[in-house]
C-alpha cells in the first residue's frame, strides 16, 4: 500500500468538515476522489499534502506515519499536488518551470543555462512530450500546461500525484490526450489521486473510487463494479433527476430578442445571428474560434469595431465596457469564477448587489437601499439554494458550486434580457449543476429570458440548448436547431472544416 488515510477528522471552528475518512491508494493505481462541492475533498487533499496540519487521524505513506511531516517534507517523500489553478510561472520557459528551485550550477557557481535546456529536453522526451523547452509557458496550450504540471511533479520524484480537477476547461480531445499521458505515467509506476466532477471520465480511467459525502468517505469501489447512475446516487445521497428541456418549447420561439448583424472585432469576422425570446442558444468552438469572443464582446469585455446589434426592437449601442452592456440588459457570467466572478472578502449579499448598485438599489444622495438589497439577496439565496448560514456569510468561505450560484444570482439580479453563460458549471457538483440548469429552463419559459450558453461539456450543452452556433476562425459556420443531436454529432460538425493539422495538439 502506498498511501493509507486512516480515521481522519477535521473541523473548522464549529463546522465539522471530515468525519472518519479512510482511503487507500496502491502502487501504480489511479484513484478517484469524487463528491459534491463542500463534501470535503479539497480539505482531505490539503491534509494529505500537509497544508492543513492540525487534523486528527493518521496519514501513512509507504508504511510510515507522516503526520509530523511538513508540506515540503511530504513532497520530498513523494506526495505532490497539482492544483486546479496551475502552480507554474507563465513568464518562464518550459525548462525553467521544470527545474524550478533546483538550478544546476556551472564551475563558477552561475546558473548553467545550457545544462538546464539539455536536461529539460531529456525530461520532456522521457515523458513523451514534444514541445520546445525554450517556449514560454504562457504560449503553451492549456492541456500542455496541465501536462507540464504533472511533469514537474514527476521530475521532483513524486510517487503519488494528486490532480485537482485537471480537465477543467479542456475540450474532449484534450481531455483524452491528458488521460493517455496519465495512463502512460501510471504504467511507469506512479500513482494518482484524481479529483473530478466528470463521472464518465472517472469510470473510464480510475481503478478505485472514493466518494465523499457530507464529510464522510465511502471507499473501495473498484472499476467495473459500479455504474454511473449508482455512483451519482452515492455522491448526492439521492437520485438526481437530470433536466430535460421539453422540445415543444424549443420550436415555439418566434419573437426575436437579440439580433446581431455583421459584427467584427478582434477574433470576430462578420458575425450575424438572431436569438429568440426565451431561447437557449448553445455556442460551440475551439479557443480562438470566435465563440468566446462574441460572448465577451456582447457583454463589453472585447471590443467590437463594426456591426449593428438590436435588442428587443431597440438599438443596442456597442458596449465599451461591461457597465454599458449591463445597463442595456445584457450580462455575462465568466468561466473564471475566481478572477471575474466573486469578491471573496465581501458577503454573499454584497456580491449579489454588485451588478445593481447604481440601478435597482440606488437611493437619494448615493445611498444604498438596504431593505431592497436584503430582499433581493434573500430571494436568490433561496431560489438557488445557496448552502451557507446566511446572506451575510463571506463568499470566500463557500465551496465552488455555491460561489458560482452567487455569481449567477448577481447576474440575474440585474434583470437581464440576455444572459450570457460561459462555462457556468465548471467544477460544480451534479446536484448544483442540475439546479442551475433547471433555473435557466424555468426563467427562459416564465420570464422570456434569452440565453447564450457556452460550454465544452456537449452532453450538458445539448440538454439545455434549443439551437447551436458553431464558430471557426472568427466566423459563424453552422447555425443548427438541436433536434435530437448527440455529442458525437456536435464534434463532427465542429470538426468538419477542421481536419487540417495543428489545430489539435
Amino acid at each position, binding site marked *: 500500500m502506498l498511501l493509507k488515510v486512516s480515521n481522519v477528522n477535521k473541523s473548522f471552528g464549529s463546522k465539522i468538515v471530515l468525519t472518519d475518512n479512510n482511503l487507500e491508494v496502491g502502487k501504480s493505481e489511479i484513484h478517484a476522489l469524487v463528491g459534491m462541492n463542500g463534501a470535503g475533498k479539497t480539505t482531505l487533499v490539503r491534509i494529505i499534502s500537509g497544508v*492543513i496540519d492540525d487534523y486528527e487521524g493518521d496519514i501513512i505513506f509507504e508504511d510510515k506515519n507522516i503526520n509530523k511531516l511538513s508540506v515540503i517534507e511530504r513532497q520530498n517523500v513523494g506526495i505532490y499536488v497539482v492544483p486546479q489553478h496551475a502552480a507554474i510561472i507563465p513568464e518562464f520557459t518550459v525548462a525553467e518551470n521544470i527545474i524550478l528551485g533546483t538550478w544546476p550550477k556551472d564551475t563558477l557557481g552561475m546558473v548553467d543555462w545550457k545544462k538546464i535546456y539539455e536536461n529539460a529536453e531529456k525530461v520532456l522526451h522521457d515523458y513523451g512530450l514534444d514541445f520546445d523547452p525554450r517556449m514560454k509557458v504562457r504560449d503553451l496550450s492549456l492541456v500542455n500546461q496541465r501536462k507540464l504540471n504533472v511533469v514537474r511533479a514527476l521530475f521532483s520524484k513524486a510517487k503519488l500525484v494528486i490532480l485537482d480537477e485537471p480537465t477543467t476547461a479542456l475540450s474532449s480531445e484534450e481531455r483524452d490526450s491528458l488521460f493517455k499521458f496519465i495512463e502512460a505515467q501510471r504504467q511507469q509506476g506512479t500513482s494518482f489521486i484524481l479529483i473530478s466532477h466528470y463521472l464518465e471520465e472517472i469510470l473510464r480511467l480510475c481503478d478505485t473510487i472514493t466518494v465523499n459525502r457530507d464529510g464522510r468517505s465511502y471507499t473501495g469501489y473498484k472499476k467495473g463494479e459500479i455504474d454511473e447512475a449508482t455512483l451519482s446516487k452515492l455522491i448526492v445521497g439521492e437520485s438526481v433527476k437530470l433536466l430535460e428541456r421539453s422540445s415543444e418549447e424549443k420550436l415555439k420561439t418566434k419573437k426575436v430578442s437579440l439580433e446581431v448583424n455583421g459584427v467584427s472585432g478582434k477574433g470576430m469576422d462578420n458575425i450575424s445571428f438572431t436569438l429568440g425570446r426565451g431561447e437557449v442558444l448553445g455556442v460551440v468552438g475551439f479557443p480562438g474560434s470566435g465563440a468566446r469572443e462574441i460572448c465577451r464582446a456582447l457583454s463589453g469585455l472585447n471590443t467590437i469595431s463594426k456591426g449593428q446589434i438590436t435588442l428587443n426592437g431597440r438599438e443596442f449601442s456597442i458596449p465599451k465596457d461591461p457597465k454599458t452592456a*449591463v445597463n442595456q440588459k445584457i450580462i455575462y457570467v465568466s468561466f473564471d469564477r475566481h478572477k471575474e*466572478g466573486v*469578491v471573496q472578502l465581501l458577503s454573499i449579499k454584497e456580491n449579489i448587489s454588485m451588478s445593481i448598485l*447604481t440601478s435597482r*438599489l440606488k437611493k437619494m444622495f448615493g445611498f*444604498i437601499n438596504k431593505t431592497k438589497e436584503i430582499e433581493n439577496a434573500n430571494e436568490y439565496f433561496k431560489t438557488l439554494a445557496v448552502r451557507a448560514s446566511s446572506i451575510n456569510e463571506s463568499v470566500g468561505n463557500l465551496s465552488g458550486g455555491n460561489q458560482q450560484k452567487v455569481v449567477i444570482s448577481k447576474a440575474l439580479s440585474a434583470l437581464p434580457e440576455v444572459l450570457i453563460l460561459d462555462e457556468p458549471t465548471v467544477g460544480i457538483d451534479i446536484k448544483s449543476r442540475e439546479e442551475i440548469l433547471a433555473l435557466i429552463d424555468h426563467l427562459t419559459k416564465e420570464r422570456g429570458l434569452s440565453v447564450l450558453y457556452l460550454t465544452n461539456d456537449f452532453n450538458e450543452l445539448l440538454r439545455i440548448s434549443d439551437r447551436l452556433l458553431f464558430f471557426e476562425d472568427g466566423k459563424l459556420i453552422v447555425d443548427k436547431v438541436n433536434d435530437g443531436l448527440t455529442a458525437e454529432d456536435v464534434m463532427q460538425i465542429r470538426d468538419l472544416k477542421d481536419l487540417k493539422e495543428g489545430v489539435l495538439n
Partner: protein
Amino acid sequence: MSTKVNLETSTPKTKQSLKSSNIVSLLSNNIVWLLLILAILIMGIVNPIFFSPSILQNILVQTAVLGVLTAGLAHVLIIGEIDLSITGVLAFSAGIGTFLMNRGLNWFLAIIIIVLFGLLIGIINGILIAKFKAAALIETLAMGLILEGALMALTQGRSIINFPDAFTWIGKGSIFGIPVLPIPFLLVYLVIYFIWKKTIFGRSLFATGGNPTSAHVSGINVDRIKIYAFAVSGALAGFSGYLLSAYMGAVTMTFGSDLLMYTLAAAVIGGVSLSGGRGNISGVLGGVLLLTVIQIGLQVLGISSYFVTMAGGAMIFIAVMIDATKTRYLKY
C-alpha cells in the same frame, strides 16, 4: 503541529476550541482598541498625570491632523493602491494657501484653495494611475517630491507666518473650554463611517479593492472609483494641511514631512489591508489614537526626546506583528 488525538476525547476538544476561537476572533478584530486601552492604562499607572482631562484632550488635539490624513489615505489603501504624495500635498497646499493669504487673499478663500488644491492633485494622481496605468508607488512618490520641493521653492527656506485669527481659530480656539480641533477630525470619521457602510461609493470601493476584475465585469466603473479614492485622499490631505497650519500658526519648510510613515503605520495597525479590500473606519480611528498616545505618553513619562522616535518605531513594530499574527491565525 499535527497532534494525534484519541477519538473519544476529540469531541469535547472541538467544542472547546470553537469557543476559544470565537473569543480570539472577537479580540483580534478589535485588537487596536485593546492595545489603546492597554497603552493608556500602563501610562496612567506609571504616571497618574496621564489620566488628567487636559492630557486626554491633548491626545485628541494632537491626533487630529494625523487622523484626517490617515482617513483619506485609507480610501486609497482599500482599493489596493498606495498614495505617498499625501504629505507633499499637505505641505504645499497649506503653503500656497497661506502664501496667497499673506498677500491679501481672504482667509476663507485661502482655506477653500488649500482643500481644492489637494483635491486637484488627488484627481491628477487618480487619472494617471487608473487611466494611464502609472504605478501608484512611483507616481505618488514623484508627486510628493515635486510638491515638497515646490514648497521649498515657494518659501525660499523661510517660514510663512502671521495668520489672521479667523484662520487659526480651528487650530487654537476653543468653545466652552473645549478645543475646536478635534471636532472637524471626529466629524470626518463620522461622515466616512456612513460613506463606507451605506453608500454606493463605499461599497464600490471595497468591491474594487477585493477584486477589481470581478467588480468591472459586474458593471462597476472601476477606473472612476479609483480616481474618486485618490481624490478623497488628496482633498483630506489638503484639509489636514489646513488644520496643521492653523494649529502651528506657521508653515515651515519641512512642514508635515514626518507624518508619512506614521500615517501608513496607523492605517495598517487599524486593520486596513495593504493588499486592498479590507478595513473599517473605527479601526483606523483606533490606529491613529494609539500612535498619538504612544508619542505623547513617551514625552509625559519623561523619556529623553532622543529615544522617542526609536520607542515609537518599536511600538509600531509590535502592533504590526500582532496584526500579522492575527491574520495568520484566522486564515483557516
